[in-house]
């Protein structure tokens, strides 16, 4: 069932934030950044945001989504890389879907072996832009 997955919870954060920040304004457009590492289902996310807007009587804004590739940088040797997500086992992709930072428990820097690296991009769901009147 679409609305039963955890994308719903992420959509609630976005809609609650916009609702509180733009009280009394008409929201025309929302741009969402979607980190590739979190493997969020874009269709379900957009559906959930639209449903929540409808349920809370906040209008029907246009929603655009930009996918952000994963980039990691080792804090020890400074190496920067993008993991090939298609080579990562399905059960780990599922884990990163809920908590992207869990990647530190499974993947190490391909150059020096450190787990002390930074997710430069590719985690989470965030609001890039809101257009209102």
């Amino acid at each position, binding site marked *: 069932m679409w609305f039963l997955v955890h994308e719903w919870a992420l959509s609630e954060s976005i809609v*609650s*934030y916009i609702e509180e920040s733009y009280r009394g304004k008409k929201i025309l457009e929302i741009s969402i950044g979607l980190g590739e590492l979190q493997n969020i289902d874009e269709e379900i996310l957009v559906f959930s945001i639209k449903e929540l807007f409808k349920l809370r009587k906040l209008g029907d804004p246009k929603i655009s989504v930009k996918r952000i590739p994963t980039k990691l940088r080792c804090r020890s040797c400074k190496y920067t890389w993008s993991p090939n997500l298609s080579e990562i086992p399905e059960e780990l992709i599922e884990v990163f879907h809920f*908590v992207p930072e869990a990647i530190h*428990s499974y993947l190490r820097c391909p150059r020096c072996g450190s787990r002390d690296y*930074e997710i430069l991009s590719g985690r989470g769901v965030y609001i890039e832009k*809101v257009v209102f009147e």
Partner: protein
Amino acid sequence: MMFSEDPREAIIKYRLKTIRYVIPVMSYKGGVGKTIVSSLLALSLSDLGYRVGLLDLDFTNPSLHRVLGVDPTATKPREEKGVVPPEVDRVSFMSLAYYIGENPAPFRGKELYEIYREIFSITIWGEKDFLIIDHPPGLSDISLDTINLIGKYSRPLIVSSVSKLAITPTINLVNLLREVGVDPLGVVINMYRDDSEISREVEESFRRSGVELLGRIRYDLSVERFIGSLNNLRSSLVYRDVREVIINEVLKRLGI
């Protein structure tokens, strides 16, 4: 308009709306027994018939699941408009361990920031009387997030051991919470020994400093042996003291 604020922070208060009392279990000094106290608080409240949630915020070293005897690789939260924590002996239990298993978890502040917000925004607790939240020691990222993001919805319980090294940090933590308008339930003195001069000294120092004392939990070596078995833990002195002394004081202070 461009954004710098985190939308996940907006949802935290709604996620906590279904919970009557949120009790962060905190300490400034490490090794005072927060994890055992948190587990037994949750267990005692549940045994008294309350609906209880238990959350492990010690992300770099989650260990509540070991106390509860939960294999985090075999159990997973259910996905339902977020994630619903599994029940362990009637306690809804949430931990990062479901995702990282028993692997190492080296996190700096940036990662702790993200995990904190992610866990709070996706966890669906449902109707609960209590949420007990175990914290890592100290006053860095996790405890500061708790103070800033959920402090005003919560009544922290502070754990101290009977070390002289615990006195000043414990008093500092209580005062720091009060400074920002967070009202701690009080201090629990853990690993108390009736035959020890230091135990009395520590207790006396707290009395003189004006911190609220909830009571003592007696030192009980058997706890270490009982880790992983809730039924055995129920037979420990620690469980008895939590249930007969600490819980009564907590309920009294909450007006229950």
